[in-house]
């Protein structure tokens, strides 16, 4: 057997992880999309994966962050930022210094504003391309990554993006592995001080628990009483549907085929 020639340096990947929030109990946990991002990075061959978190360390967030360490990491870099700070400058600075090839994030945070802007802001600041909704990295060759992007309705699209790049992971990406308790306890949280800039806009906004959105009523705008009565009394029906009776199966099939073609569902 010939020893493999490793002329390509290993790929440096940084995963930005955040503290999630359990939808029912509200406790801190691994954020779902971030954990999927870590899983994605773990699946990359010959990748050196770094975990990076910007925020405060307290009881709730420590269990959440150690959850990521339990996915098979020795250390997690923690950029110390106070509550309510704008983490963007510190993150951008750190990433600029470390200059990884690929940065993986979740799409939206589970706490705070959760606007999903971070990958775009970082990309604009660093001048890197960004791709959202990635479910798989199919391969990386010659500074170009081939990605699989999730579209609505379970569809997928293949993209090529030039590295270095920032990708955000969709909820349809492979589920993260379970976090192992021992490695999670043993892992180190490496503190790094970062520049602090406060988010004044956020402090000025009113934030409350989400209330249920009102259901849209079916409003009948009818000019006459007859129309209103018809709308209230009529059974739901498509109306104006074409019915082909007494046709051969071939004619019927041709009509269906035409409709499927027009709708563009046949490939």
């Amino acid at each position, binding site marked *: 057997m010939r020893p493999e020639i490793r002329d390509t340096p290993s790929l440096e990947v940084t995963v930005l992880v955040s503290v999630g929030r359990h939808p029912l109990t509200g406790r801190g946990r691994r954020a779902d999309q971030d954990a999927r991002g870590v899983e994605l990075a773990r699946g990359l061959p010959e990748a050196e994966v770094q975990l990076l978190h910007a925020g405060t360390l307290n009881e709730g967030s420590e269990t959440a962050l150690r959850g990521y360490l339990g996915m098979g990491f020795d250390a997690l870099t923690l950029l110390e930022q106070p509550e309510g700070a704008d983490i963007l400058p510190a993150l951008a600075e750190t990433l600029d210094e470390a200059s990884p090839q690929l940065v993986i994030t979740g799409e939206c945070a589970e706490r705070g504003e959760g606007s999903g802007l971070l990958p775009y802001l970082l990309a604009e600041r660093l001048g890197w391309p960004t791709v959202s909704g990635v479910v798989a990295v199919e391969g990386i060759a010659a500074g170009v990554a081939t990605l699989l992007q999730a579209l609505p309705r379970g569809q997928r699209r293949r993209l090529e993006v030039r590295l270095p790049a920032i990708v955000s992971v969709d909820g349809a990406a492979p589920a993260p592995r379970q976090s192992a308790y021992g490695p999670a306890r043993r892992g180190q949280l490496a503190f790094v001080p970062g520049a602090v800039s406060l988010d004044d806009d956020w402090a000025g*906004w009113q934030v409350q628990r989400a209330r249920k959105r009102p259901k849209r009523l079916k409003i009948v705008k009818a000019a006459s009483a007859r129309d209103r009565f018809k709308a209230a009394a009529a059974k739901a029906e498509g109306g104006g549907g074409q019915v082909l009776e007494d046709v051969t199966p071939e004619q019927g099939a041709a009509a269906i085929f035409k409709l499927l073609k027009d709708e563009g569902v046949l490939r």
Partner: protein
Amino acid sequence: MSEIKRRDPRTEWIARNRLHPQHLEVLAELGQGVASEWMGSAGIVRRNPHAVGFMGPNGIKRIDRSGVQQGAGGGGAAKSTAQSKPLVEIEAPAFLVAVVPDLSGGRLSSHDRDLLGLARQLADADPERRGAVMAVVVGAHKEDSYADAGVDRLLHLESPELDGYAPEARVGALVAVEEAWEPRHWLLPDSKLGGADLGRRLAVRLGERPATGVWQIEADARGEGGSGWRCTARGAANTLDIQRPLPRVVLALAECAEPVSETRHAAQPLVLAQPLPAQLSRIEDLGPVAVDPAGVALAEAEFILSAGNGVRDWDGFHRAAKMLGATEGASRVAVDDGFMPRDRQVGATGIWVTARVYVAVGISGAIQHLQGIQSCDKVVAINMDSGCDMIKRADLAVIGDSAQVLEALVALVEQEREEKRHAA
């Protein structure tokens, strides 16, 4: 046909006899119906209340005020109401509100229409200084009802660079629009179909902090933040409501406002003066990837072939689903009888589907099943019974043996694939 005029003494007699129950109908047929309204000699409108209406089947006089009797029929009436919507034209708008619709499948989605409704709210708030809604359509489209959706100005940007997934080129084009018109607000749908991605890119490029997940806006009398509007946006994975002044770039959720329905608008085309800027694209679209339709969750499948009690040839059905590339569904009966797994059941007791095209094979259409397919766009029914409820719901119904129709359909698809292969 001979040219000889035939007299019908009976109708003439009825026309003379004004006490006859069919008197008015016959008069109307002969074209000499009694006018119920006419201009009197003194310039006053005179009415004959006895001439209004017609005799119903039970010999009772009925008055139809819906306007259907005067018109040609149902379809004509619907068309006339569309025509009769007042046309709103804004000649010199005080400002512009730009909307970038998703146009999934080339048509305005209901989300896009809601967004245009939101734009109208912003534009029409001050009747003294009305703004115009500008729709920025990027790439090819098939939509022609922009006027009814509330669009005052329509800007269509087309270039081969903008097709497919080209977020960088699209943002570049929108920035060119920004430079040319400087709209007061940019509204985009916060949807996975592209609006969410494009809107965030645009906001970052413009240096604005956008409001994402907006589901409500209200006028803000205090005028904080300058825009005069406040918005309520969802944050933190839909667990928070954030109230803030409305920024320039807004990414709004579906049902953020009522769509425009009562007015027509000009949809006047605009042209971008300068050519679109050339963009260095670092993201290349390699096109869609074929996915296994059986692996797609039924609730989000685009194209479903669903089987019911009427299916006898199950092998043929599975083959058809495979050939058409459709996700398989089933009615409750087919599942209960053990022909299909439980997780494929469509309906109120199973999965509520959102398919664009739903083909129901041998399904009669129980009300629970029809509830489950409420949000499907096009429903095709293949059924033996022409009187069943599924036929009433369907946009296209074929009455016949489902096995034969499916077989013919598979043959058509195979034939087309063959032709494509030969051509290629």
